[in-house]
Structure formats: structure tokens, C-alpha cells
């Protein structure tokens, strides 16, 4: 029997319309990633100057709408927008009308009245950025939606790997830990696969979602599988997402004994990454976190220039050459 496909309009279009938002790594083609990373490199050079502010997005408005606690992502987006001279407004859910029971749609419509160019949103629920994109006229950047996507994290990770390890194409990256609850893992699997890396997921079977190998990765429950990787990417054990009674792992002690990333389980020269915040002594041994092979601080610095590149790219959609001129203006 032939089974019909789903409704045509629900299938991904073969020729996508011009990109307005960055909600998922799936929104990007390989060329887009190459361009974004090149733009980030040119911004990194500009930040070496004494005068760090660029006039590029003067007069533009960026709204940061954060419904979850965040230090590095929210501060990095805020600084990225400021370095590009945009006006920035940061709205947090606590102490705002959200506390009074306002719906996300109404909050988005309220902010849309100021006609922002970009809304950066972090929200605990999958689909929140799509809703904001649907009801406002702004470009929407997903800064993390539930367990779905965190695309700027994956871009800054690619940037870090390119700068400190080498071209992503052909590299082997092991992602270790709680993949089930990790939007960072999902964005990274997509981004690494898009750029030609081999990806192996390592962790307890209860934290590796069924069917995820369809995203183009391998799966192992044996920590020894990190041995052949060029980069070991350690995920945070998301204790706040482990709902009571779910029992994904019997105990953190057992998790650490089996899957903790320790010096003994690494080869010299293997690079180690972590999206933060770390639980030292749980998923990552403190000696690993502080070793010369750890790129964790580098990742944070990469976040700034990559987010500058994302904002710039959405608002100008220009080729990378224009960026050179933009940096010239400051010179």
C-alpha cells in the first residue's frame, strides 16, 4: 500500500524563503554558517582596538526577552547589541507583567508596539520563538527554547572549534551526558553534522532520546567511546530539568562514576568543551575543567562576537565584505 505523505504545506519547503529569524540551526545552510563565522572573525579583530564600539546598528532596537534565568547568554546578547551601537532593552519575566499572568502573545504584542528590529527570546517552552515570530514584525533570535534549540550556542561552539582545533569538516566530536534534556546538544548535533563532523553521543540510555540517530550521529553507552574523539563536549547534568520521580539516573554518584569526564578517560591533547554552567565533580572533573585543553573560557568569549555576527547578519543580510567596511568606519 502506498501511504500518502503528510500535507504538503507541512513539509519543509524545497526552496526556503529569505531568512528572517534564527530559531533553529535547521534554518541555516552551510554557506550561512561559513558567512556568520567569517563575520564573527572580523568582529573579533575590531574588538582588539581600543575603541570597541562599532556604529553599525545605530538606531536599531534589540529587545532581550528572557523567561529563564541566564547569565552568560543574556549578558552576551546585551553586550553584542551595545558593541554594535543598537539600543537594547532587556525584559525579564520576574518583576514584569508576565508575573501578573500575561500571555506570551500579549507580552510580544506589547513589545512589538515599540517596533523593535530584533527580539531575542529565551523561554522554557518549545515553540515560544515561533509564536513571537508569528505575532510580531521583528526578527526573532532563539536564545534557548525548552529542550529544543539554542542555535547561537552551537555557532559559538563551531567558532571555538575552528579557532582552536581546526576545520570542523572531518573532526570527530563526542557529546557526553544528558542529551535528553539538552537544547545545546540538539543544536550542536545539527551544526556539527551540517559542517561535516562525525558526532558520537555518549551517556546512559535513559538520557539518550530514542530515535536521535536520525539526526546523523552515533550512539554509545560506553564512556570509552570518547577515546577517539578530537573534541569531548561535556553537557551539564540538568538537575533542574529532572522532574521528581522521573529517575533518569539512579544517582548522580553512579552517573559520575560511569560517565564523568576525568583525566584518566582523556588522551593528552583532546580538547574539552562545556556550555556552562558546570557542575564540577559531577559531569566534569575539576582537573579537566581547569586543564590547558579545556576551551570553556574561550567559548564564553566567542559568544560575544558570534552574537554580534548573528544580529548584524539578520539586520543587514549583506555579504561579508561589507563587514570589513563596517570595521573600517571605526578605524
Amino acid at each position, binding site marked *: 500500500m502506498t501511504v500518502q505523505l503528510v500535507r504538503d504545506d507541512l513539509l519543509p519547503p524545497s526552496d526556503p524563503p529569505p531568512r528572517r529569524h534564527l530559531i533553529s540551526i535547521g534554518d541555516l545552510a552551510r554557506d550561512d554558517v561559513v558567512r556568520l563565522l567569517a563575520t564573527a572573525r572580523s568582529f573579533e579583530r575590531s574588538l582588539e582596538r581600543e575603541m570597541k564600539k562599532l556604529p553599525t546598528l545605530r538606531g536599531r532596537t534589540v529587545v532581550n526577552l528572557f523567561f529563564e534565568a541566564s547569565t552568560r547568554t543574556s549578558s552576551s546578547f546585551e553586550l553584542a547589541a551595545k558593541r554594535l551601537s543598537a539600543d537594547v532593552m532587556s525584559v525579564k519575566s520576574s518583576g514584569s507583567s508576565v508575573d501578573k499572568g500575561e500571555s506570551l502573545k500579549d507580552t510580544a504584542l506589547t513589545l512589538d508596539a515599540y517596533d523593535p528590529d530584533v527580539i531575542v527570546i529565551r523561554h522554557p*517552552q*518549545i515553540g515560544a520563538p515561533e*509564536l513571537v515570530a508569528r505575532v510580531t514584525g521583528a526578527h526573532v533570535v532563539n536564545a534557548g527554547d525548552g529542550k529544543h534549540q539554542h542555535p547561537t550556542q552551537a555557532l559559538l561552539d563551531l567558532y571555538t572549534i575552528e579557532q582552536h582545533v581546526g576545520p570542523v569538516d572531518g573532526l570527530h566530536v563526542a557529546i557526553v551526558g544528558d542529551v535528553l534534556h539538552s537544547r545545546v546538544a540538539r543544536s550542536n548535533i545539527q551544526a556539527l553534522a551540517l559542517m561535516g563532523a562525525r558526532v558520537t553521543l555518549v551517556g546512559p540510555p535513559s538520557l539518550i532520546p530514542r*530515535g536521535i540517530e536520525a539526526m546523523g550521529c552515533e550512539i554509545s553507552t560506553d564512556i570509552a567511546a570518547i577515546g577517539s574523539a578530537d573534541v569531548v563536549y561535556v553537557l551539564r547534568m540538568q538537575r533542574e530539568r529532572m522532574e521528581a520521580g*522521573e529517575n533518569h539516573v539512579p544517582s548522580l554518584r553512579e552517573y559520575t562514576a560511569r560517565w564523568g569526564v576525568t583525566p584518566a578517560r582523556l588522551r593528552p591533547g583532546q580538547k574539552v568543551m562545556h556550555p556552562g554552567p558546570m557542575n564540577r565533580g559531577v559531569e566534569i572533573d575539576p582537573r579537566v575543567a581547569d586543564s590547558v585543553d579545556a576551551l570553556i573560557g574561550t567559548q564564553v568569549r566567542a559568544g560575544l562576537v558570534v552574537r554580534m555576527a548573528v544580529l548584524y547578519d539578520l539586520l543587514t543580510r549583506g555579504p561579508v565584505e561589507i563587514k570589513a567596511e563596517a570595521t573600517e568606519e571605526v578605524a
Partner: protein
Amino acid sequence: MAILHGRPGHDDLVVRSARVIDPTQGIDDLLDVRVDGGVIVDIGLNVSPNGHRVVEGRGLVLAPGFVDPHVHLRTPGREDEETIASGTAAAAAGGFTAILAMPNTEPVVDSAAVLGSLIETAREEAEVPVGFLAAITRGQRGEELTEMAELADAGAAGFSDDGRPVVSPGLMRRALQYHGITGRRVAVHCEEPTLSRAGQMHEGPVSAELGFAGYPSVAESVMVGRDLALAAYEEQPIHLLHLSARESVEELRRAQAAGVRATGEATPHHLVLTDEAVRSLDPNVKMNPPLRSAEDRAALLAAVRDGTISVIATDHAPHAAHEKDVPFEEAPFGVTGLETAFAVLNTHLVAPGVLSLPTLLARMSAGPARAYGLDEPRIEKGARANLVLLDPDAPWRVGDGGFRSRSRNSWLLGETLRGKVRMTVADGRVAYEAA
């Protein structure tokens, strides 16, 4: 006590030269049908109008009225989402001549008092006859049985905790034992809550990629297996609501072959969509049970064709716009379906040759009526007129011209479908006519 309740009335009319299809009687011919005082009195060629209004049926199909045994009328409690009047008007527009309403209202239909007031309202407001199921357990809390015998005497059309499973096997067994007294079907929502826990969509590659907590097929099929085992042991019939998984279909087929009097239903959305649709993150493709894989969909279609699944039911679940206009994860489960059921299945299953038109008509009419022990709509002399006049080729866009339902959470908004209901005659009365 009658099971179905609606506004009284009857009409006289003649439908001329329609393709009359009554699959259970093997009729498929160009015929005239005359209705006198709400009763079919003549079927044949050149039937005399006898002064009645004549409805031209050339190019149209006249079939036994549809029966939808799975509707949420949201009354009492959420009349902003649906009322008996609006829900039955939507049913009439969809070609349904009888519907059954689920008891998961606020309050739950678990007492003769609540049931009695619904029946009274239906007699005044219902555009097509409606039957009301009562809950299996008080408040649908799964702790103690409702007074099933008294509820049956008060007119309950059947029993269900739909929306929730009866978690305790012991209670489920008692409910089946009571079927021996009431004769009114026990209909079960099969979901093992410790497996479906927090699940937002089918567990598989799509949920893994999107990051949603998965609601695996086995959460349904283990409960299907348990309930079929209990029905077999108690030698009582059972009806399985909205099946979604291949494994559930296999359980049902095995039980039927072993002589268990089990019936099963499938919804239009499970027969047309798969979990790929959830990539849109549109809250209008969020249902319980969830849309499943292409293999599950194929198994449901095969079961509808061979009769293992004899019932197509909409699971019409109206929701207020502001409750669906939220991120997918926050949205409630459920979609509307009464006004689009025939058209979407005609477009996506009959037109491409996946299902024959007579089979579709049987699964939407005689199948559901039999599953609940209702009189099946028939096109025969002496029968009450329960008829639907269909234009199988007419295109229309869903949402144009609005809905008769009070809610518009349709997964088909903006879709162009083929197949229009021209007229619905329910229990002898013209309940709907297309403009």
C-alpha cells in the same frame, strides 16, 4: 429510556436522481428517495413527489447519515468553547445525524442530575440527536465507580473516562462487569500514565530532534492489551477510543480473532497526518493520543479498510483561541473535526484510492452506531430518515464562511478540501442545508 435526544420535528421531501449508497445493504444506484413525515416511504425510479419539495440529487451522493461517537460538547462548564446548540449545528453541517458527547466536562457527567439537565437541554437545542456518555469513575478520578446502573436508567449512552485512562485494573474490571447490567458500552481511553508522562508528541526521531518529551506507542498498546484481556475474561464488549499505534491495532485484531467483542476507532487526523506535521510547532496538531509515525498511520488505514477498526470518530475537541495561541508545549491537546471529517477523508483517502467511498461511508455511519448498540442509519422503506446528501467533488476552503462550532482550532484551517455536505436530514428533520 431513549439514548439519543434532540429537537423534535419532521419534514417531507423527495431527493431525485442521487447516487444512493447504503453500504450495509449493498445499495449503490441512481435512485429517488421520498420522505413523508420524517420516514422513508419510497425508494425507486420516478418516485412521485406527491406535492413534496423536490431536491435535485444529480451528481450528488445520498448516504445514511454519519454517526460521530466521540464529541466534546464542553457543556456544562466551558460554554465559551461549545454548547449543545453549537456543537450539534456543527455536526449537522458535517453530515452527522447522531453524535455522542463525552463526559469530561466541568462538572463531570457522573450523576443522574447532571445527565438529566443535559438531556433536557438537548431536547430543546440539539440540531441533531445527541447521546451523553457518563463517567466510569466519579469525577473521572479513577478511584470509585459511578452509579452506572442508575445512570443507564437516566439515559446514559455509554460510559467513559475519556481524556484519562482507568488506571486501576480492578476498577476497570468492575466497570466491565456492570456492562452486564446496563448494556451500555464501556469506552476506554488507553494510556499508561507512567509511560506517557509529560509526553507532548509521539516518541521517535521527530521528538528526539525537536526535544519534546515523548509519548511512546507502547503507552497506548499496553493499556489496550490490558483492557482487551479484561474484556475477554469478563466476556463483555468493549470499545477502544481513538487508536493511534500499530501495536494497538495488532492487539485488537488478535482479540477479535479470539472472539472478544471489541470495537476500535480512529480519527481523521491520525488517518491523514503523521508526527512529521509537528515540525510546524502549530498547536493545532497537538492531540492526545499524538500523531504517530508513517508505519502507525499505514496500520490504522489497513485496519479501517479490513474492518478491524469499524469506527471513524472525530474526537472533536474545541478549545478557546487564547488557549491554543500559546507555545506548542503549553497548548492543550485536541482539535475540532465535525465540520471537516468527511471532506478531509474524501480528499486524502478516497480521491487517491486509499479507501473506497462505500467503506468510508460505512465507517462513519453503521460502524459507530453498531459499536454503541444504536440503530444504524439505513436507506430503506419504513426507516426514520437519517440521510446525508454529499457533493463529493465540490472544493471549499476550511474557515471561509466561519464555523458553526464556537471554536476554530482546526488543523485544516486554510486548506482546500473536496467534498461538501449539501443537506443533512437527522431523525426525519432537515437539520442542515448548504447555502
